[in-house]
């Protein structure tokens, strides 16, 4: 084992100062590039949404003739694709909230059973759950489309809700079981001695202690629901049952070109997620560290 520290070349103070400035400058440049990279498509969305109908194809980088006409049309449902916009927005909301609540409920109950009630081969169930992810969701769309019709749930919001819950739950169970390992079993035991039945243990001990994991998984399920498009599109096709995602896609398949209306719809659709992101971003990021990372 060497007993001397390897020598490093000592250079002039000027070198070090220039080196530091160089590093600072390149970091600033990188930061600027990242900001432009992240914001460019968002700027594009806003620019098109705020353009008048003629300005869309004008080919200018800045706003040629800014107007709020597109937003007015969307909000007042003035265009024939947007006739039921607020109703469909409500449908989207119902889907997002239901997926979140159902995922949390089903996954917490399942991981409670596996983790706390000490099923002998509980790990098999968790692994079987993760098997859901072997076949990507978009590949399962065709069978699920057929099956939803067999179940009689076609064009009903619950078909999308159940499909999305199915894809969110395995990961949720995984996170819950990892996080649940940090809650000592002695708490359950003392509750047992006090005469609690499993439902009470679940409700009074497990859920409150799992609160951080619940929030993290809840935001994950929410993200999954509002990023989803294919299942919305396949399973909901009547104007009454459509969500905004499907309505947006109608613009893409049309021959007309009211792109400013489409972008305005896309922006309004993105507003709840962005607002929730700013409110909950600490929890969304915390979900990634649930349980810690070990090499």
């Amino acid at each position, binding site marked *: 084992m060497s007993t001397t520290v390897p020598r490093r070349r000592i250079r002039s103070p000027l070198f070090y100062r220039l080196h530091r400035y160089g590093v600072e400058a390149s970091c600033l440049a990188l930061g600027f590039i990242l900001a432009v990279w992240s914001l460019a498509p968002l700027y594009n969305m806003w620019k098109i949404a705020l353009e008048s109908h003629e300005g*869309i194809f004008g080919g200018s980088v800045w706003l040629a003739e800014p107007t709020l006409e597109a937003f007015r049309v969307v909000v007042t449902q003035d265009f024939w694709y947007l006739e039921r916009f607020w109703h469909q927005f409500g449908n989207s909301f119902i889907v997002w909230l239901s997926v979140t609540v159902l995922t949390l409920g089903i996954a917490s109950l399942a991981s409670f059973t596996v983790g706390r009630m000490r099923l002998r081969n509980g790990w098999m169930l968790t692994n079987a759950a993760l098997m859901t992810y072997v076949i990507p969701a978009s590949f399962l769309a065709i069978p699920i489309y057929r099956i939803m019709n067999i179940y009689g749930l076609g064009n009903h919001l619950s078909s999308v809700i159940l499909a999305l819950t199915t894809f969110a739950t395995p990961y949720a169970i995984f996170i819950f079981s990892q996080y649940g390992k940090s809650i000592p079993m002695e708490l359950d035991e003392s509750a047992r001695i006090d005469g609690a039945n499993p439902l009470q243990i679940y409700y009074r001990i497990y859920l409150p202690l799992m609160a951080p994991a619940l929030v993290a998984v809840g935001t994950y399920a929410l993200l999954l629901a509002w990023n989803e498009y294919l299942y919305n599109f396949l399973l909901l096709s009547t104007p009454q049952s459509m969500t905004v995602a499907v309505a947006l896609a109608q613009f893409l398949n049309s021959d007309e070109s009211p792109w400013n209306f489409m972008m305005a719809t896309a922006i309004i659709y993105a507003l709840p997620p962005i607002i929730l992101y700013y409110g909950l971003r600490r929890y969304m990021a915390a979900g990634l560290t649930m349980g810690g990372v070990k090499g």
Partner: protein
Amino acid sequence: MSATHQALPLARGPAVTRSWRPPWRRGLRGSDVTWAIAFFIPYGVVFLAFVAYPIVYGLWLGSDPALYANLFDDPRYKITVINTLLLAGVGVNLKMFVAFLLSGFFLRKERWIKPLLVLFMLPWALPALSAYISLHWMFIGYGGFLNSALDMLFGVDGPIWFNSYWLAMGINILAYIWKWLPFWTLVFLAGRLAIPQEIYEAAEVDGASGLRRFAFVTFPLLANLYLVSVLLSTLWTVGDFMAPYLVSSGAPALHTLVLATYGYRIAFDHGYPTMGLAAMLSALPVLIPLALLLMRRLQASEVQL
């Protein structure tokens, strides 16, 4: 705990036939079994109804060998497979590499790093539909934002992006990376934060420069997380539908389809669902080994995502 242990033999009397075990080591008994079943039923039903049945049904639908013969005869299928491999291979690896580097960047201490991170996370928060629609419109030739910007900044006439196969594939990959880079950067950032600072300080005391600290401390500790992330992301990307569908929409002339969009097109636009399913199932020989490898790595190393 020890008090009860001592008290118990006295309470039970001399005729103890079984050694006493703590309650939580016994299996479930009595009413507990009913509760366990009741708690597990919701997930069990969901799994059987929406995972097991569709998978079995899908495998049955796509089990006709004639379908696969037809599939391999279709020249578009070969291009589709190449596209899927490109998207998964280039997209995932480029994204992971950049995410890994950026995670180190975002650990810097300047004041503007935190706000920049919040801004950088925006693509992750934006719904994929809105994001991909906007990206598609940035690149269309007639009045698209990117060509206007190129014209303004450099006086250059940008190409018609979606008329060239390579440009269109490149844009698909770019859009996909744009959407998912923040998420993986955050994953690696969390991984880096889990490395105790003392290790770095010890390395510095031993005379390690920045590059050596990276090579001998950061990289070995994050290698497993990196591998698991790449595997998981590849699984997800092979089935990615939205980016190729919305951004390039198969342009030019259906040359940039991937397996998901190709299968969807055959199933729903051409009304031939069994063949569409067969196209998607043809990816299973790649997906299943990946998934098994992933599960083995997850169990072996206790990496949590």
